[in-house]
């Protein structure tokens, strides 16, 4: 594996070559007490791809995202992002490396406006401190204005949330909150975007909107996306590559088409007839 490289210098020298993968999850083991949540999961994510992670409930999909953004510390294995060993990075420094995420259960700051939530996503790219910010003249003010302009014209325009940008987040319906969470993640100017079930609980129209946003971000901004999703239609349509997890182990990784034909995957999802019936509670 490549030696540790500073994140800034890597962007110049990192074409999407297979030898230095964009994100490498290398033999991860994660345990909660006696429960093995992840046992020996490895996969690479290529730059510019939309990488889907699928699997039945409790397979360990969210655990992987939590390991990547350093909420969990795996007891074995390493995760490299552009050659940087993430286990040596403090949780709050992960954002500065260019990793952003959204959560399965919305984790927005509910008492703040949409605008403030998105501005918070910009936190690591801003510089004003408690003195310059409190006085609010010169640099701090021009920085606020610059960020405001950037957010309004890049993110709010892209996600079509102009009408709600001054609303308090807690008052918004679920579908819009999901969109605001994506907006906040985009404000972090990520290189890697981790999305944990962005379409969960959405109707068809909202799901299609969200899929379009993800494709836009991926293709126009060049952001690599790791996507956990249960909506197989979406996964098959937009992802370049799919990792399938079951009981904390990787059972397949391939293109969407190949994965859908894979016997292990069909068994994990549907099982034998009897297992399928018991899972569905019939």
């Amino acid at each position, binding site marked *: 594996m490549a030696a540790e490289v500073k994140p800034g210098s890597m962007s110049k020298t990192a074409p999407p070559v297979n030898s230095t993968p964009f994100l490498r999850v290398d033999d991860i083991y994660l345990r909660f007490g006696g429960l093995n949540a992840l046992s020996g999961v490895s996969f690479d994510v290529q730059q510019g791809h939309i990488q889907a992670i699928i699997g039945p409930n409790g397979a360990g999909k969210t655990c992987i995202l939590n390991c990547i953004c350093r909420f969990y510390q795996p007891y074995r294995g390493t995760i490299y992002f552009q050659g940087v060993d993430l286990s040596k990075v403090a949780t709050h420094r992960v954002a500065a490396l260019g990793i952003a995420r959204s959560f399965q259960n919305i984790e927005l700051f509910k008492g703040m406006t949409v605008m403030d939530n998105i501005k*918070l996503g910009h936190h690591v790219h801003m510089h004003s401190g*408690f003195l310059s910010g409190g006085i609010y003249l010169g640099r701090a003010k021009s920085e606020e204005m610059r960020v405001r302009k950037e957010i309004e014209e890049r993110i709010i325009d892209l996600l079509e949330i102009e009408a709600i940008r001054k609303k308090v987040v807690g008052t918004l319906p679920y579908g819009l909150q999901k969109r605001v969470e994506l907006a906040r993640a985009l404000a972090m100017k990520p290189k890697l975007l981790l999305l944990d079930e962005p379409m969960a609980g959405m109707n068809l129209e909202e799901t299609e909107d969200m899929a379009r946003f993800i494709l836009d971000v991926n293709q126009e901004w060049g952001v690599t996306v790791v996507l956990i999703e249960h909506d197989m239609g979406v996964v098959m349509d937009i992802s370049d590559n799919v990792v399938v997890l079951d009981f904390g182990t990787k059972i397949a990784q391939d293109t969407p088409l190949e994965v859908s034909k894979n016997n292990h995957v069909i068994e994990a999802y549907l099982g034998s007839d009897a297992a399928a019936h018991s899972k569905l509670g019939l």
Partner: protein
Amino acid sequence: MPCGLFFSKYEKDDAIFKTVWLKCWMTVLVVLLLTFPLFSQKFSEMLGLNVTNLLNLIFVYIIGAHGLNLLTGYTGQISLGHGAFMGVGAYTTGILANAGWPFWLALPAGGVMTAAVGMLFGIPSLRLRGLYLAIATMAAQFILDYAMRNWTSLTGGSSGLIVPSASLFGFTFDSDQSFYYLALAFAIMATMYLKNLARTRTGRAFVAVRDRYLSAEVIGVNLFKYRLMSFGISSFMVGIAGGLWAYYITIISDEHFTMWLSVQYLAMIIVGGLGHVLGGIFGAVFFVVLPELLRLPAEAATAVYPNIFGIFASLREMVFGLIVIMFLIFEPDGLAARWHTVRNYWKLWPFSY
């Protein structure tokens, strides 16, 4: 926002006072505040109160309440030590003033000292939240209280410490009227500081730490740094309030800075409105003015029934407590929220559809 108001520049939208009317009203308020000492005498006689004195106290409390509001309202960390922190500021400023330091140096030094003490007691905030942090900061209150009372060589103990009046550029602020301007200036500065801080990067990070600290960490907010910074800034402000208090009262003793003051600060921002800049102002006004207003009928009644003064005096405390409880029940978001409701109502009046 009032309807029919459109902006073509982000700067315009960002202004605190967005309409001409608001600017006019603010100008009127500032002019009234600046000219107030001219007619304060008459006003005081009319009410039978020393109004300038009350306003000075309000201004000092506003600074302290803003400080605690930053910590509790914005960052979501309860402190029951702010009474003692105010004492640290008062004693530091007082001792330095007695050592011959000028006002403009002794006051900030008191603030910095308080910030250091506050940050020291704020270190447990990395691990403790909510009630647990309240208890930890209460320990700070008791330790500092004990030190103030018993370190007599430094603080003069319960006999008090005499502090000279503030003087700046050869002018001495030794009367209610002159101190009024000093306190007003500092209260306005503290308010502007809090307002601006709340709408920039640091203030947003504070609110993020309050609302969802895990999520805050994901977007790159260093939790420990911001928790500690919040304690520092908050203690600095309350230390400045303490220093001003020392210069105003000119004799300080440990009795001012007990647990009661800490609780009072907390009650101020809860009644005023947690996490609102107006909250500290409303809370300070409420807690200074209401006891005085309640004193008036109590005294009037005592004139008629002189023998039962004690009952009326204690009745006053009970009414005060009752009003605070009523506020918590009927307006838990504080006076600031009520203010916004009223304002929004009038914006649309009489066509409230």
